[in-house]
């Protein structure tokens, strides 16, 4: 693996599709101009669990303009085992809001109206949606499926003895609520069956995954399906795995051959159909000596999944990587409930896990009388605390020090509830951030060069708003050692070679390393077969993502430091965050402009998590009550103050040829903890259950 010299990399280019986006001319899935489209509207279960005992489509079918009504009685039998995707295969209902049918009509108005006229009768069964009491009721199990870097249950040393002997101890339980991704663009599909096959326009993080899933489900060959996804209106993980809206759209289109069927989930439906971040209950126990050196770290998490499919957010995943400790224990347990299936959401694991761990570290700093920046630096490990591997690079102390300098941390008086301005209590907080440098399998690239020196780079990657189109072109130009103007990158189409999903902050690592290998191969072929000159007919190579020989030799992680200032109104409890500042160590930054946007976007989503977001479950009916953007509050412009992101220089020759570590997710990690820690500094009140709302800060008498 040879490093690529940066020429285009490092330039703060504006995103290439900017002009299209500011005019609204970039086409998202639903918007592709298609001839004579039909519209699908979904019918969803109104009970949490039960069985359909009668379904009457006569009224719906009779509506002028209705083309077909889809139910479990006429749906095709699917060739896929995934419980979340196996919709309309029987009359069973596994959660409230599950698809039980759909109406296809000439217009969206007719489809929506007719869907409401489908009458479904159920025999209800009692449902269990109670995570809180799952432990007492013996409902917990250790998850099988993981996204683990480390085993779900990990032990080193003897945590209990070390805790008992520790000079300073923390034992706290933290709770995070159910979160929904809520990308602004709903999950949308256009599906069209013809004799030649199936054409799909899908809002997805993984066109190849859509192709493979639909091929399996509908018993097609993958090459009978073509998936287009040139622009995606945000995703945050919700468009990584396939969800049942895709299956419903393809089923519906099968009923009206040669008609493109448009399907967009409503915002309400987004709360039950597109995955979500499970609530967590996390207990963190820390033990330290009198100097603040950790002697024991224990972290356990309890989460939920559905009965259809197991998904476990690995909330404890970051813990073994963070701090030096001789004794370590992590545990994770899961309850399967009569609810929709959770899924990956921005920084799955680290996001909620680091809220707990970094809140606990702040509690340890307070209990031990140590500065929280110094406490973290003091516990910096020399090698990975669990497996002893050296880090490929690790700059957490540099991030903490640089952040402290920029934020003005030195003059901080640690006393809680000691600063008051115009009726506002003021406080500051810090937390660390981390995210693993992942690489996802499954990428190929085709590179073509013509005698005029133009290079075309083809792969079915996607740009979900992260800036992929721009940054990956910068990588390609440097890999090919040519100017940006000589490179055309085409993505978002399964006619191109397959690409790993956009996710895990691994896009540039997975796709970029593949492009670098393709550029090497192109040079080798040119030299070996053509004397270094491009032949008149041009030259094309296709290569797979190469192995990284350093994977087993080094621990590869990005790090960061989050700082926040909060003001809490002394009388009303109103909470404002006038200032957030993050400093990150993320290897090489390919495009400082789009990278900065990703980092501040993550930090602001962290602010939203800290203060606003929570999906509220109604246990009587098993659904999210606040299933819209008026009552599920995501941060608006007025909620956000100054947000600044910086990075430290980091030269990592081991992660990939570009030296990048990924930065789509680390911005959200620790952001909520920094705010919660600042709230404690401002008010003296430790909030261990998100979101931090004013009712939790006002005195209760």
């Amino acid at each position, binding site marked *: 693996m040879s490093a690529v010299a940066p020429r285009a990399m490092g330039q703060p280019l504006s995103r290439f599709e900017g002009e299209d986006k500011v005019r609204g001319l970039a086409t998202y899935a639903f918007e592709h101009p298609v001839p004579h489209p039909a519209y699908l509207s979904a019918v969803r279960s109104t009970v949490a669990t039960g069985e359909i005992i009668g379904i009457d489509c006569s009224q719906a079918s009779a*509506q002028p303009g209705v083309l077909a009504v889809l139910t479990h009685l006429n749906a095709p039998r699917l060739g896929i085992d995934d419980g979340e995707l196996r919709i309309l295969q029987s009359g069973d209902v596994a959660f409230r809001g599950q698809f039980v049918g759909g109406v296809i009509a000439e217009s969206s108005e007719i489809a929506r109206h007719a869907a409401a006229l489908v009458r479904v009768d159920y025999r209800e069964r009692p449902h269990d949606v109670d995570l809180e009491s799952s432990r007492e009721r013996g409902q917990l199990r250790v998850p099988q499926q993981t996204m683990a870097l480390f085993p779900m249950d990990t032990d080193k040393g003897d945590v209990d003895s070390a805790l008992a002997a520790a000079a300073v101890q923390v034992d706290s339980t933290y709770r995070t609520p159910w979160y929904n991704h809520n990308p602004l663009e709903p999950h949308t599909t256009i599906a069209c069956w013809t004799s030649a096959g199936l054409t799909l326009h899908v809002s997805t993080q993984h066109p190849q995954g859509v192709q493979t899933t639909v091929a399996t489900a509908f018993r097609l060959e993958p090459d009978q399906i073509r998936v287009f996804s040139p622009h995606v209106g945000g995703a945050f993980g919700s468009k990584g795995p396939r969800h049942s809206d895709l299956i419903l759209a393809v089923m519906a289109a099968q009923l009206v051959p040669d008609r493109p069927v448009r399907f967009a989930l409503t915002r309400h439906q987004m709360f039950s159909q597109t995955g979500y971040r499970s609530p967590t209950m996390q207990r963190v126990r820390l033990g330290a000596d009198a100097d603040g050196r950790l002697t024991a770290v224990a972290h356990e998490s309890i989460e939920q999944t559905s009965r259809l499919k197991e998904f476990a957010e690995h909330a404890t995943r970051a813990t073994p990587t963070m701090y030096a400790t001789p004794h370590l224990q992590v545990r994770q347990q899961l309850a399967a409930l009569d609810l929709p299936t959770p899924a990956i959401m921005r920084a799955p694991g680290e996001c909620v896990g680091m809220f707990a761990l970094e809140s606990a570290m702040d509690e340890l700093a307070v209990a031990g009388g140590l500065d929280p920046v110094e406490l973290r630096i003091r516990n910096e490990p020399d090698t990975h605390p669990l497996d002893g591997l050296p880090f490929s690079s690790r700059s957490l102390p540099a991030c903490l020090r640089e952040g402290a300098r920029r934020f003005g941390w030195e003059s901080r008086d640690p006393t809680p509830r000691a600063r008051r301005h115009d009726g506002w209590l003021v406080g500051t907080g810090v937390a660390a951030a981390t995210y693993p440098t992942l690489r996802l399998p499954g990428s190929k690239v085709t590179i073509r060069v013509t005698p005029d020196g133009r290079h075309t780079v083809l792969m079915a990657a996607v740009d979900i708003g992260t800036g992929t189109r721009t940054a990956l072109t910068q990588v390609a130009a440097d890999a090919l050692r040519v100017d940006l103007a000589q490179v055309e990158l085409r993505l978002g189409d399964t006619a191109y070679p397959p690409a790993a999903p956009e996710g895990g902050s691994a896009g540039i690592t997975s796709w970029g390393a593949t492009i670098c290998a393709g550029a090497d191969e192109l040079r080798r072929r040119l030299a070996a077969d053509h004397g270094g000159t491009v032949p008149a007919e041009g030259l094309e190579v296709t290569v797979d993502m190469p192995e990284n020989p350093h994977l087993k030799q080094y621990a590869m992680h990005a790090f960061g430091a989050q700082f926040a200032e909060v003001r809490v109104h002394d009388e009303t409890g109103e909470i404002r965050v006038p200032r957030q500042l993050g400093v990150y160590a993320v290897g090489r930054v390919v495009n400082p402009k789009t990278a900065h946007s990703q980092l501040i976007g993550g930090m602001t989503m962290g602010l939203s998590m800290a203060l606003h977001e929570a999906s509220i479950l109604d246990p009587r009916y098993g659904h999210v009550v606040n299933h819209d*953007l008026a009552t599920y509050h995501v941060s608006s412009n007025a909620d956000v103050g100054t947000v600044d992101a910086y990075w430290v220089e980091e030269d990592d020759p081991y992660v990939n040829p570009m030296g990048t570590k990924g930065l789509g997710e680390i911005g959200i990690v620790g952001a909520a903890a920094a705010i919660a820690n600042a709230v404690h500094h401002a008010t003296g009140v430790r909030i261990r259950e998100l979101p931090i709302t004013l009712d939790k800060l006002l005195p209760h008498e």
Partner: protein
Amino acid sequence: MPITWSATHDRQGLDIMDTEITLRVDGADHRLTVDTRTTLLDALRERLGNTSPKKGCDHGQCGACTVLLDGRRANSCLALAVAHDGAEIVTAAGLATDGELHPMQRSFIEHDAFQCGYCTPGQIVSAVAMLEEAATGWPSTVTFSPPDGTAGEPDTGPVDLATNPDEIRERMSGNLCRCAAYANMIPAIQEVARS
């Protein structure tokens, strides 16, 4: 303006009414048939093929569908098309003239005030309308009660957005951005407000 009704009846006696209306969209006149249930947003997107305004929530909660409706910003998902026969509509696509981007569009690109781009046309239309509202002297909550806790002065004069980011934050809060480019939108809008 006369309305032409062409009513049909389904078996339950429901009226399915198609109505012909005219809309002037981004400078071009259109005659189109809409269902009486068709929102202005769906008329634009699904009948006229103008997908510059976006559907994020269909409930007036996210602002992605913002257009200028007879000169004022409006959530087009909350308007029924039949109620706006003869209306003049400007979308973000229509803000560019003769192929030249509007200064607000250029500034959004320069400051990277968006990521996925889905809320962006609505943000930009909203920002353009907001400049006009502030220049006309329309107050916001912040005009009376700044978030720094000081007492504001009710004032009917123009509001200077270039020097008052909290006014921009407040006035732009009808447009959600899940990618959270808010912190870049403020300097983008301030730059246009200054010029």
